[in-house]
């Protein structure tokens, strides 16, 4: 027993928290890279206001929709059988996770280029400078917001933030009481990335994003397979602990595929 929880329940909550944290961390790093690029080129005030506005809008949408979702009875007295929820959510997570895993294998085998936040930062900053040169400048007094910086930071934060919300909902829908650990994982990721970005004022190139994506792909694929299996009535050996052997199995498959593809001469594409 761990803090009064059974081992199986602790495993489920722990893996949900870690998976939501890692998946959200990747999205937050991507958003931070663009916000930092915009801020460093066009000014911090507009970029941070854009990101903060998007965050407030997103929080408002979640606050408005969240209680409605909570009213949908997914367990017990429900019209939607829970195994249907597991099937649909599992299938979505599986599509999401296997796409990441496939891409991660292709990256590690050198068939497509590795994601590089430092390079993405430079590219974003260059694009902003080019846009700055070609677009007629809007009046930009000391007290007015730079619309370009505001909208760029707003868009990327909304975009990546929506993905984080999806991740939380998907993991939270996997069972009773999982929404809280999934939300905690996402909020922790946001806090870690925000703190690191504030401290460094640089893209988080040290975050091993490619390794993270590899691991998140493995985690999501394992979760998705488990839930689809549960939804279709399969009995897993070891019950919830089957998630762990599924993770190990996906990891082995992925690690075997990398050298297999690497042995071929690569034509790297982005």
């Amino acid at each position: 027993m761990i803090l009064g929880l059974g081992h199986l329940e602790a495993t489920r909550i722990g893996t949900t928290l870690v998976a939501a944290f890692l998946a959200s961390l990747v999205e937050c790093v991507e958003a931070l890279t663009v916000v930092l690029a915009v801020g460093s080129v066009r000014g911090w005030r507009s970029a941070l206001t854009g990101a903060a506005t998007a965050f407030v809008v997103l929080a408002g949408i979640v606050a408005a929709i969240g209680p409605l979702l909570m009213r949908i009875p997914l367990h017990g007295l429900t019209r939607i059988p829970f195994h249907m929820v597991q099937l649909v959510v599992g299938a979505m997570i599986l599509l999401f996770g296997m796409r990441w895993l496939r891409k991660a294998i292709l990256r590690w085998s050198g068939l497509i280029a590795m994601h590089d936040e430092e390079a993405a930062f430079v590219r974003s900053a260059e694009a902003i400078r080019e846009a700055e040169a070609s677009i007629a400048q809007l009046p930009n007094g000391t007290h007015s917001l730079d619309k370009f910086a505001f909208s760029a930071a707003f868009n990327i934060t909304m975009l990546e933030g929506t993905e984080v919300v999806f991740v939380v909902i998907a993991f939270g829908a996997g069972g009773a009481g999982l929404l809280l650990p999934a939300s905690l994982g996402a909020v922790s990721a946001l806090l870690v990335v925000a703190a690191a970005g504030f401290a460094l004022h640089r893209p988080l190139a040290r975050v091993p994003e490619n390794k993270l994506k590899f691991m998140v792909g493995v985690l999501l694929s394992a979760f998705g397979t488990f839930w689809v299996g549960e939804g279709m009535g399969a009995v897993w050996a070891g019950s919830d602990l089957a998630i762990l052997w599924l993770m190990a199995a996906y990891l082995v498959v992925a690690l075997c595929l990398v050298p297999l593809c690497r042995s071929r001469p690569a034509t790297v594409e982005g």
Partner: protein
Amino acid sequence: MRWIKSIVRELYGLFVDDGSFAGAIAAWLILCVVVMSRVAAGARWAGPVLFAGLALILIQSVLRFARRHTK
């Protein structure tokens, strides 16, 4: 409104990168649900069979990509 379109496009892109890969996964899941829920409900081998099919789809897709890009 452009950001809503971007979000919709991005959300679609979350699930579908390579169409045939996503299609194969969807087809395998549908087959498993239809067949196994009738034939193998409660069976211990249903889960490993589900995983094996998904792993094969992943292997086939990655190797096909590798073949195409190394010719």
